[in-house]
């Protein structure tokens, strides 16, 4: 097996895969893609791999995959021998896919606000910020009740799943889009827990958590 990640360091979506592969102790190669300012994700060679022109792309031998959520599911199903990150159970699968879809909404809001403020993208900043707050409120509520019920993670298993990885980066990077998290204490505690997952790695813009007691 030879895994290659077409990667941009400052992309939270690429980071999701780096994070899971680190937790799974997978070896992989990185091909840096100059997303900004070079816009290489719109270059012909890249569009041949992913006509949607989006990062990340992952190659596993001859298989070419795109979409971070789909690749998370693929990597977990294929390489997680303990079947913890993306369990087989139909109900849990549905739960995880539900949160993968929330993760895409976080990308469309929190990440879009970050691209607008930091990288000159022409998005409606107020609208994307408002959208991010709406999602964070719901996540905070979900996580607060989870803590009462003894659930530390987004989904019901007693361990993190790809849902946590999919939602984490653009929650953690939200301040770059002008979306503070001080109103979401349960969400902030969850980001501490994610940062303490064994094998956790940082990306540029995210700091590690200190040790747990």
């Amino acid at each position, binding site marked *: 097996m030879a895994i290659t990640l077409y990667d941009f360091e400052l992309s939270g979506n690429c980071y999701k895969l780096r994070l899971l592969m680190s937790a799974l102790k997978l070896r992989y190669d990185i091909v840096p893609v100059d997303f900004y300012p070079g816009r290489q994700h719109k270059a012909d060679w890249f569009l041949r791999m992913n006509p949607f022109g989006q990062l990340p792309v992952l190659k596993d031998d001859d298989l070419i995959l795109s979409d971070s959520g789909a690749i998370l599911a693929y990597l977990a199903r294929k390489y997680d021998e303990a079947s913890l990150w993306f369990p087989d159970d139909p109900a849990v699968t549905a739960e995880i896919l539900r949160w993968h879809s929330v993760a895409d909404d976080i990308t469309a809001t929190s990440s879009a606000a970050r691209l607008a403020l*930091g990288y000159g993208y022409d998005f409606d900043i107020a609208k994307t910020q408002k959208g991010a707050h709406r999602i964070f409120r719901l996540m905070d509520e979900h996580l607060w009740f989870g803590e009462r019920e003894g659930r530390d993670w987004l989904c019901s298993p007693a361990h993190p799943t790809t849902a946590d990885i999919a939602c984490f980066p653009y929650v953690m990077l939200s301040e770059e889009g002008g979306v503070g998290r001080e109103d979401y204490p349960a969400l902030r505690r969850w980001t501490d827990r994610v940062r303490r997952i064994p094998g956790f790695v940082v990306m540029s813009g995210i700091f590690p958590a200190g040790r747990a007691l």
Partner: protein
Amino acid sequence: MSSIDPVTRDLWQVIAATDEITVGVVEATLLLDTRIALTRDSDGSPVVWLRRDEEQGDEIDPASVLDRLPAITGYGYIWTSLGNPPKELFPIPEYAESDRVNMSCGSIGIHVSAPRAVENFLDMGHFPYVHTDILGAEPHTEVKEYDVEVSEERDEVLATKCKFFQPRAALSAIDGMEVEYVYRVPHPFCAVLYKSSPEAPERRDVIAIFLQPMTEERCRAHLLQSMIDSTSTITDLRRFQQTIFGQDKPILENQFPKRLPLDPRSETPIRADKSAIAYRRWLSQKGITYGVIPVAS
């Protein structure tokens, strides 16, 4: 709206990387709370004016723009001024050396004043905590004594003999080593650093940060690398620099107040902050008030 002090008004201000501006297409930006439009004309030279109803991405005949702001190209970037700028930009002589790889590394918006970003660029003490395992790593946290002067002749702040232990000082570095830096602040919102090149130890890599003050509390950082590196690709080198800058961003955006306080009693300097202190005094003496909190008179 904030008032722009005369010194700031007369400076050259960076607004875009030259090769990111398409001939005849409008780029819109903000400089000193002022809406600016720019493009390049058919010979590639920059055309900059006060933006009216033009939108980002509009096509325009540059010749139709009559009321222009001063514009100049330097170090791969377009510079303009809202006042009467000097004839030339500050010098970075190394940029012209033929065997160097010169590149822009993107323009990144940050929610902090330009002087705060300059001060962070001059700072070594944060390397182990912010650029962990790249520019620094615990336990090597000590900032040794270094020299700082304000050169009257060149009107710039200069810090020399700055040494720091780095696990991976540059893309081409493999092992940790003590790296020597020289920092220059030749412009209130621009700073240049020189560090020994791992590939050619007798020469120095040059990294510069040019800050575009958009408002008093927001800026865009434009990065320049001028490297002695015959093996890395531009994509690799950009990635390295963006990684570093992306690590500074959350720190800068969590700094309060967002404008740089010039009153010495606003914060708590230590010996390692000599260059920052010199920079703050220099700004005070120049009479810069934009993006700073001046000392109450």
